[in-house]
């Protein structure tokens, strides 16, 4: 298309989405930055240029504790989910028939359209002290184990949330691995495990890293699992945001927490993507 004045037609098609996303996505995010400098007087937010909110949040030990806990939970969830997902994704991509593959991909899409809340509530029933798992183990005289309201519970919830997406993303990236390389490795008497580590993982690196990144992003922002499976105390950053927002008018402080989260996510995403696309063999 030549460089000319955009036609009415092109504007009618392209502008609605742009306007909507600028007005209702970009503006609210910019507004979040603005209100982090506002002050609250008599339960009213007043425009201001005050660093008090930042100062108050960033000098608090509780914030940094929550920050470290959230980052660790998200990292653990991303690592755990990737480790559980990889053998499954590998088997789906390399070992299954085309038909079985399609069927499994469809099955793995289903969870996206189930309510995460309902699943977490159901997990409570599974994990609680007198719940399904402990009752089951009790038949063999084992347990009971404390699983609900622990870090373990939180991680179970996060893995439930992330696993289908991570398997799917890994499968898609593994599908692009050149099968001739794998064949060549076999012919050169490269063992199975070594083929996976030396040939398949490096060729699928971009997809694997991006899958882990998504698990990190999802877990980092999730407030449902830490709250209803982890007990919510001590809080994570997202629980902090919901608490501050729902319990009063201190939205500017919640905005500071939210911006710190966005900053962290952008840094992690940038780092992960740089790593993923780094030249092979350094």
């Amino acid at each position: 298309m030549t460089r000319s004045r955009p036609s009415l037609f092109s504007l009618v098609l392209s502008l609605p989405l742009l306007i909507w996303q600028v007005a209702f996505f970009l503006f609210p995010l910019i507004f979040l930055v603005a209100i982090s400098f506002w002050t609250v007087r008599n339960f009213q937010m007043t425009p201001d240029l005050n660093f008090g909110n930042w100062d108050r949040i960033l000098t608090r030990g509780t914030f940094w504790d929550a920050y470290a806990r959230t980052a660790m939970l998200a990292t653990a969830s991303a690592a755990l989910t990737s480790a559980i997902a990889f053998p499954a994704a590998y088997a789906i991509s390399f070992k299954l028939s085309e038909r079985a593959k399609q069927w499994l991909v469809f099955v793995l899409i289903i969870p996206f359209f189930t309510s995460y809340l309902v699943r977490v509530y159901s997990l409570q029933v599974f994990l609680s002290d007198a719940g399904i798992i402990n009752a089951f183990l009790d038949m063999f005289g084992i347990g009971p184990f404390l699983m609900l309201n622990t870090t373990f519970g939180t991680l179970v919830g996060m893995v439930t949330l992330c696993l289908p997406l991570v398997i799917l993303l890994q499968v898609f990236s593994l599908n692009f691995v050149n099968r001739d390389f794998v064949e060549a490795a076999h012919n050169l008497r490269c063992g199975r495990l070594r083929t996976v580590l030396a040939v398949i993982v490096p060729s699928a690196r971009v997809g694997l890293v991006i899958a882990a990144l998504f698990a990190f992003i999802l877990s980092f922002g999730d407030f449902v699992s830490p709250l209803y499976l982890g007990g919510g105390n001590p809080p994570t950053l997202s629980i902090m945001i919901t608490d501050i927002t729902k319990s009063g008018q201190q939205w500017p402080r919640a905005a500071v927490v939210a911006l710190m989260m966005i900053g962290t996510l952008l840094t992690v995403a940038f780092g992960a993507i740089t790593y993923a696309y780094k030249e092979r063999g350094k």
Partner: protein
Amino acid sequence: MTGNRNRLINAALKLHIAACVIFIFAPILGSFVFSLNSDRFPSLPLGHFSTEWYRLIWEDPFVWAGFFNTVVVGLIVAVIATVLGFGGAYTDFRYNFFGKNIYLALALLPPTIPVVIMGLAMLAFLSRVNLSGSTISIIIAHGVMCSPFAMAIIRLRLSQMDPDLEAASWNLGGNEWATLRHVIIPFTKPALFAALFITMAVSFDEFAVAWFVSGLNETLPVKILGFLQGQVSPRINAIGSLAFVSSITLIILAQMLLRNSSKDKS
């Protein structure tokens, strides 16, 4: 490497797939089973069969109000997101322009922002412009979150289109509008319907942003969040099971449309 060992590893891998699927679906199936169970807090051995929880939600006027809100929001959001997504997908398909990357980033990024942050930003912004606490605020927020899905689905369909098709229409004297109406929309029709269904399903299940901005006009998922914060209530399972069945119906419809359309193309 012996064949036997190979077979063993393959069997172990398949077992692992099965374990993952069980892990993912246990809570979903569990919720179905619990919804039909008499126990308030189910455990092993399970209590007897009961439709008590369904009766309770059937008789709860708040659940009906929530359901009504959810459906209204879902329908409107689906139409808005699909229209916006179609425009975005066609723009990406057809035009190159300065700043296109920014355009695409704005269009596609919302799902990567954590929902609590979206919720807070939406709440702060919408209450400033006096829109928070209304059904409109949920529609606005869900429009932002759903249009990327619609755009991706429609863009995928457009990439299956023979680019000569449009040129042929222009050569035959059709202007851009006529081409849009007689060539592009018919071609993308299955994807348009798929986008409608999928965005509706996404909106049906979204609770976090809706919770932040909804005020008193709660949708059903927000209601579930309320139940979850209160006492133990297996009503969640009953509502969840019904919501699951309706979402999955939408997805299967979308899937069938997309599958048929890719068949008649190639």
